[in-house]
């Protein structure tokens, strides 16, 4: 008349508060996994001139953009299909044009005479699965 004895014993053993404690333990066990950083791909490109952030462009914004500073055009960059490259430069050796497009999320195009840096934002770096982090040259 008092029901199944084993079931009664189980219910008595696990009170609602106990289940709460168990859930809390499970939650904290999974928390570090949930909080693991993801692999964000860059969505914007930054152009720095003489230490100043001059341009911030979306990679969706296709086209050619002049980089003007101190009243002179120092270079032109092109955004096309999610890649960025320098198409024109006022410097003599034009090494920045030879660099080609930014090839990795942490790649950077440098023009020393023009004091210009072109890089993705954020430079999502380093990567957990990236094939490499740095280049010695």
């Amino acid at each position, binding site marked *: 008349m008092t029901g199944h004895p084993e079931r009664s014993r189980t219910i008595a053993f696990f009170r609602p508060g*106990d289940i709460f404690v168990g859930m809390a333990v499970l939650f904290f066990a999974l928390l570090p996994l949930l909080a693991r950083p993801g692999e964000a791909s860059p969505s914007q490109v930054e152009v720095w001139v003489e230490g100043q952030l001059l341009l911030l462009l979306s990679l969706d914004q296709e086209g050619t953009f002049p980089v003007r500073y101190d009243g002179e055009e120092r270079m032109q960059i092109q955004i096309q299909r999610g890649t960025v490259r320098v198409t024109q430069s006022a410097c003599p050796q034009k090494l920045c044009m030879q660099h080609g497009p930014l090839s990795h999320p942490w790649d950077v195009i*440098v023009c*020393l005479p023009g004091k210009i840096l072109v890089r993705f934002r954020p430079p999502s770096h380093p990567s957990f699965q*990236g094939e490499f982090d740095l280049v010695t040259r």
Partner: protein
Amino acid sequence: MQQRDKNDLVRLSRRTWFLTYALIGFLLVLGAAFVFRKPPPYEVEDRLLLGTHIRVAVSSQKNPSAILDAIWREMRRIEAKYSSHVSQSEVSRINAFAPGKAVPLDEETLFLFERALEWSRVTAGAFDIALGNLVSAWGFDRVSESDFSARVPTQAELEAALSSSGWQLVEISGQQLFLQGGVQLDLGAFVKGYAVDRAVQVAKGLDPECTGYVDAGGDIGIIGPKFGGANWVVQVQNPRPTSQDFFEAAFLNQGAIATSGDYERFFLVEGKRYHHILDPFSGYPSTRWISVTVIAPSALDADALATAAFNMEREQVMQLFPRFGAQALLVDSQGDVYKTPGWAFFSEDHP
């Protein structure tokens, strides 16, 4: 009534045990969460300093922005103090002294020159900071591409430059430096390595637990392992990139790596390449190797040894470098690659 009390006692006892286990489990999970906690993200900043592109990545539980600021301050200080292209720099001041006159040095400069001269002695002059006149004769002392006017000097110009070049013309006595015979100092890449080392020291001084790296145009100093435990994967640039830009990876979680190559600064005359790493004996650009990469405990040493190796035979490098905890990778003009035996350790991703 008595029976019910007994059941309650049993139930309470089991419940206590359960809560004890739950508490232990919770503490274990908390410990695991601490050990495997999410590493703080890397703050990555780029600057153009010391005539090159510098990237610093720092991860710290404290204040990474403050660490980055301190690093840039220190690097700007070193640039202002030691760059040959800064008219008020220590190097410019020393070079302006009359030959044979005593030049007083501060502690830091004394350390740098003693270290440089030590490498000159150890490498029998293959590394030499007293080639300022030779570097000028070739025009490699120009600071930027827009001011780059390198040319092949005449034989008479070369001989004149060689006669007033060489580490034997530099003498340190106490805390004074003496330059003989009109010799001019050119710290060049040596300062870059020093700046990298100082940047690493500054970062560790502010937060010993911080990790990251300092990359000054390919001279790389490791602040600490990636995410606190992994190796940084450093690719060595292929000196003659055709199908692949890189040909070797090095795995580092401490120390430094630096490369010298004949492709960094050069000019072509009638198809012949003249690059900026000069042979202190012939006065011409070194031709033994087209690229040298060195892994060493510090960027200063990696820099000096990478330059020295350009003027050294393979056997000399293989014997000498490991004695100083350094490993080298040499590439000759045929594309043949030679490595010190210890390089193999850095070719694998040790946990």
